[in-house]
């Protein structure tokens, strides 16, 4: 079983849902496809997508919504489809 940790490439603020009124991008157990957006990072008033590099099963977020993150910090974990 390979666990992929998706890390932030940038410093900024993490948003776990596309907008405040809607559910989070992913819940544990959800399928994830390669290139799918699993969070947004706000950097200097721009919202940039954080994408899953590989397909698999979503295990959970490692950060709280609206948390400040640094480059290299873990955003979420994905069990990669073999």
């Amino acid at each position, binding site marked *: 079983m390979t666990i992929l940790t998706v890390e932030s490439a*940038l*410093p*900024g*603020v993490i948003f776990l849902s596309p*907008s*405040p*009124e809607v559910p989070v991008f992913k819940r544990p157990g959800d399928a994830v496809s390669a290139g799918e957006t699993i969070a947004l990072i706000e*950097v*200097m*008033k*721009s919202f*940039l997508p954080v994408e899953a590099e590989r397909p698999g099963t979503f295990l959970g977020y490692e950060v709280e919504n*609206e948390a*400040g993150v640094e480059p290299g910090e873990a955003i979420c974990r994905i069990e990669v489809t073999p």
Partner: protein
Amino acid sequence: MSRDAGRGIGKLLIANRGEIAVRIIRAARGLGIRTVQVVSEADRGMLAARMADEAIVIGPAQSAKSYLNVEAVLAALRESGADALHPGYGFLSENAGFARAVTAMGRTFVGPDADTIERMGDKVNARAAAIAAGVPVVPGSAGRIDDPAEALALAASMGFPVMIKAAAGGGGRGIRVVRDAAELAAAVPQAMAEAKAAFGDGGLYLEAYIENARHIEVQILGDGETVLHLYERECSLQRRRQKVWEEAPATALPPETREALCASAVRLAQSVAYRGAGTMEYLWDPQRREFFFIEMNTRIQVEHPVTEMITGIDLMREMILIAGGAKLALSQQDIRRDGHAIEVRINAEDPARNFFPSPGPVHEMCLPEGEGIRCDMGFDPGSTVPPYYDSLIGKLIVKGETRPQAILRLREALEAMRIGPLPTTLPLHRALAHDPELVGGEVSTQWLEAWLARGGLTADAAG
């Protein structure tokens, strides 16, 4: 004698950050006023915090929890014992409720009173005030629109294209252009939902869309009785409706138009007994040779230095003096224009990667010096541009006797200027300063994006 009233302020709290906080501290110092800088946890080490007499941490990095947190800023104001607050631009600078709360605490808000902010900061109200003062406005809706059918009927009568704007919007946000009835029908419900989400108010208004328009704005100063203008600035170079490069004066304007434009701004400000520094923004239609008022900013603006360079008047100092109760010591005849000034905004963005944000530490900063050169920076070597706020690092401002001389000086200053290792918009400005169309002055508010789209940046960098 009347100027002494401006010394009513003894201690000033700066409710902002970056380069404008530094600018406010410099002006306050010049007046012998003590300074208190509020900072978020991410900004503890910023230049303004080190320059101020005191610094107070008001909350976490995110703006909503610090610089936009009314309760936290008011608590700092109370704790600091400052008798006045300068809001700078952005953040809480045009929040009437905040201005009212500052005044209710018995402190001075450096800006117009809350009622004026409410009246002139709301685009629909400001437009009504302009019409009442006989100032031309862009053809558009008479008031706010809350019904899609009403929007459609009005657009059909005005003629397309039209712009849909959020009544409570600002800073270029919440604006879209539609070219026919079908686009409008699709866009109005979306725009209402977005305006509701972004500003808490779904009200919209419509305006005719003027093609090839130039953005020209008039700087005014008022003391509640007298209003003066300090001539105009041209800010047509914009990307995503954010200004990038600003000039004073607007060389495209015929002299009689300049006179009429500045007089209209004074008339409008006088109609609300304006107190403080403010800017009336206009569109200039070069084909029809007409100008139209679009909105007022009831605060200092990023690009105020170009006006200071050509008039020799320290706007920040005047603003603080007026807030302290002073009357203007100048008359309109004292305000003269001399030469041409250009400001370029140095942002932490990478022009080679479609202006991707580039926050990070500043290890190198080499600033040009000399006659007619000014740098207003928010950061110094060893400081870090955080990812949480806008990308403005600082501004380079140059002045020459004529526009061509100002452009030559700008080219030299840009060659000498070094900021690193983070990518900045310096290469963009170096390319722009050599562009024949821009040098020729043939621009509009759409020009920069079109220039970027046709590879202006890469073509010039390669050459």
